[in-house]
């Protein structure tokens, strides 16, 4: 009988210990949590190299421009370089005439090479029309147009650059996606609106602005 009492009490003791341990463990899970606690934040950076524009021949030398007769456009033949440079000046200057136009051929040697990151399109804007001045207030408008090539420095396979908002608007072009450094070749040609301007040396600066889209 005494042994039975001991077994009863030992059984109660065992149950009590098990219940207590389970309770404590459960309370530990719910109340203590885990420490230390950590959180990791991702860091993201999209790196792009800067856009650079290299003008392989910085001067647009149009040479001597003349007008054969008032109101008659003088058009150079396409395909030659700087076709207007060797034409003589036959008439007195200044002229009484309406606007005369001279079409310039694409000047293959006047290449603007734009280097960008690959796979990202750019916006390129030409500062057109260009005002060419003699420094004394006389201005010739150079209404240029452009062609571009995304894959090679090859005007023959270039495409005419048609700005969505006209010549004055920003021009959208894509960089070459085949190379690590994208390239975009731009070729300039256009018209000269001579107007009533005196003879002289006229010059201007054509700007090309490029930026990532």
């Amino acid at each position, binding site marked *: 009988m005494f042994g039975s009492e001991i077994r009863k009490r030992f059984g109660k003791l065992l149950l009590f210990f098990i219940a207590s341990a389970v309770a404590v463990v459960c309370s530990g899970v719910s109340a203590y949590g885990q*420490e230390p*606690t*950590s959180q*990791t934040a991702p860091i*993201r*950076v*999209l*790196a792009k190299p800067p856009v650079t524009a290299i003008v392989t021949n910085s001067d647009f030398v149009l040479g001597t421009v003349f007008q054969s007769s008032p109101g008659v456009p003088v058009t150079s033949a396409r395909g030659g370089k700087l076709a207007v440079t060797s034409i003589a000046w036959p008439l007195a200057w200044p002229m009484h005439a309406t606007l005369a136009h001279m079409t310039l051929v694409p000047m293959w040697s006047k290449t603007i090479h734009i280097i960008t990151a690959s796979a990202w399109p750019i916006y390129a804007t030409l500062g057109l029309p260009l005002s060419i001045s003699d420094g004394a207030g006389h201005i010739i408008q150079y209404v240029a147009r452009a062609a571009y090539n995304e894959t090679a420095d090859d005007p023959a396979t270039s495409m005419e650059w048609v700005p969505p908002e006209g010549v004055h608007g920003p021009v959208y072009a894509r960089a070459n996606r085949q190379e690590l450094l994208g390239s975009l070749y731009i070729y300039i040609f256009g018209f000269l609106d001579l107007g009533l301007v005196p003879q002289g040396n006229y010059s201007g600066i054509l700007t090309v602005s490029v930026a990532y889209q």
Partner: protein
Amino acid sequence: MVRRTFSATGLWVAVALCSALFFGHAFSAGSSASASATVNVAIIQGLYLQRSGGAYGDGALDFGIVILGTATINPRTSAGAVLFTTQGAPNASVRYDYNYVAPTNGAYSLTYSPDVVGNTLPVPGSALDLPSGSVRTLNSLGSYYVYLGGTVTVPWSAPSGMYYGSFTLTATYD
């Protein structure tokens, strides 16, 4: 001051408590003697960190497009800062440690300098610098706010593309 207590410690305390109760009961059943024990148990609320914020609201420190040079996210003023919200025992002391992996594309690593500040209020503008290893006191609601920013540098030599890194903040009861 709330003392740190582990669950294992709590277990031993509970065992001692149970033993004292049982043997006290057992002895009282067999004799007229009695015993009592005073048991103190310090239970502390769990410590938790929650991450949020960032430029895209996903808790990531996103510097966006960096052309060249440095880009900075000011943790006090920038909406791109990442927020770590600590929740624990009111007025508890918490130690903050952190480490980071600079953004890399796998072959090239950028330079990254973290800028970490903390505040008992959810106000980044008045937050104070929080160097790694700092101990701060949670507010009366058991909260503390850590804001993460930093500066990343993209040199000329960095290849273009995406760079990924990480920043890990660890909070421990002190």
